[in-house]
């Protein structure tokens, strides 16, 4: 009986959370579209989410591109298909690795920071203070972060793609002994515009998810340092899981 009770409780908690996130999503989208728009807040978030995440995303994609070149060479050399390394690197980075790795890294950096900042504002009454100063917290805090997340991640991924492919190129030329011209021509030969766009579409969705989870968990943060800590952890974990689910869903939708 106890097992079924706890199962039921967990189920109800899950339903409550899904409903609550859905409601938060609808309200935040609504307040994103209604003036006033807080331009200064949006710019601040663009810098924080975009510019400050660049080193993390750059390093992640650089080394991923490099290791991908090495691993794919090892595999393809077994059936004499070494010359496809450049194509594999560019397609893997633009379609899959770039968006997912950038999404997961930004979820760790930005999702945590959004949840911690808004959670701290909640526990120190700053959100209540906003309300008493005739400012809607959803418009002032949530809207700019959602906009910044959705805009910044595709830009980060685009830059990350270039760095990742460059990492593969460096390994290809200096470690695996490919001819530079051949490697570059192989890189561009099979790359289609739709590959890049699919990656950027994924990135925009991931950016939105990261900001939404950070804002949601921060906004509903429990009291005290423990509450903010839990909110931060929940924001990162839920954003990471949702990114992986969304990644499969988008890929499956455009498969073929």
């Amino acid at each position, binding site marked *: 009986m106890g097992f079924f009770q706890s199962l039921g409780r967990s189920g109800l908690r899950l339903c409550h959370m899904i409903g609550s996130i859905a409601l938060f999503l609808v309200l935040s989208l609504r307040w994103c579209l209604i003036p006033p728009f807080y331009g200064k807040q949006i710019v601040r978030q663009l810098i924080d989410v975009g510019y400050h995440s660049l080193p993390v995303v750059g390093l992640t994609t650089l080394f991923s591109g490099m290791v991908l070149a090495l691993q794919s060479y090892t595999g393809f050399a077994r059936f004499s298909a070494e010359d496809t390394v450049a194509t594999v690197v560019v397609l893997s980075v633009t379609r899959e690795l770039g968006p997912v790795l950038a999404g997961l890294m930004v979820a760790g950096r930005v999702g945590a920071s959004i949840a911690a900042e808004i959670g701290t504002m909640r526990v120190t009454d700053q959100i209540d203070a906003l309300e*008493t*100063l005739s400012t809607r917290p959803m418009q002032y805090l949530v809207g700019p972060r959602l906009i910044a997340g959705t805009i910044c991640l595709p830009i980060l991924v685009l830059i990350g793609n270039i760095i990742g492919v460059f990492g593969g190129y460096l390994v290809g030329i200096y470690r695996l002994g490919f001819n530079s011209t051949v490697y570059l021509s192989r890189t561009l030969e099979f790359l289609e515009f739709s590959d890049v766009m699919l990656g950027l579409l994924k990135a925009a969705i991931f950016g939105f998810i990261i900001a939404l989870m950070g804002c949601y968990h921060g906004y509903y943060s429990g009291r005290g340092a423990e509450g903010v800590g839990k909110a931060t952890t929940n924001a990162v974990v839920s954003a990471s899981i949702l990114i992986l689910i969304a990644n499969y869903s988008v890929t499956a939708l455009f498969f073929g």
Partner: protein
Amino acid sequence: MTDKKKRNVKIKISNLVKNFGGDNVLNGFSLSLKKSESLCLIGTSGSGKSVALKCLIGLLSPDSGSITVDDQETIGQSRRQHEAMLKRFGMTFQFGALFDSLPVWENVTFRLRQKEKLNKKEAKEIAGDILSQLGLAHQVLELFPAELSGGMQKRVAIARAIADKPEILLFDEPTSGLDPITSGVINDLILNSVNRIGATTLTISHDMASVRQIADTVAMLHNGRIIWCGPIKDINHTGISEVDQFVNGKPYGPLTTNKRETPQTKQTEISV
């Protein structure tokens, strides 16, 4: 009540009930404030004073009861009406609740800048004027809240609350955590500011020295309702043992010291 007396009432709270998970924090809370009156709400920790204040300003929705401001019911207002009503209020929070990411001048002029679209220079001048009235130098304008002492933070919070001269001011423990001298200074500032703008004031305080300094009227909250309300001069002769114990700070008496406090997590209602 005669029409004249009725006109004089600024805020009327009647039979407010607020329940958190089966715990009746407010249970028939009633209080009225006259125009330009300074009322102090006292009570033990966890007695629901902050909950009452949050219900009054609309940060929490009461389960039942009525709140009128200038004879206008505020419970059940539309979002637009509520926002219009909020513009008539100024509030300071127990721990200041200054915006960490904004410098002092932006904190002080936060609402003014949205209302009047002030440019940076004008806003800084206004913030500087208000802060100098509260005894703070212009040098603090560019500082962030984390760089200020507790007393300075309280002053900035007061400056933010009075910046656009609201009709009603709510102070949640404005002198908590301050030394007696700084508390005295803050009380003086509150008195001067309130007198200057002629606001109706509701202050929550545990500090009887502050209460005696700033209150015209005192109300004591116990078990979710007001057990005594009267002029400050009568506070020592109420004949109510709970009030007597609180005012004289006696450790033993009818006010239970181990009363379970209202869980803070349940006090947060998300208004979106």
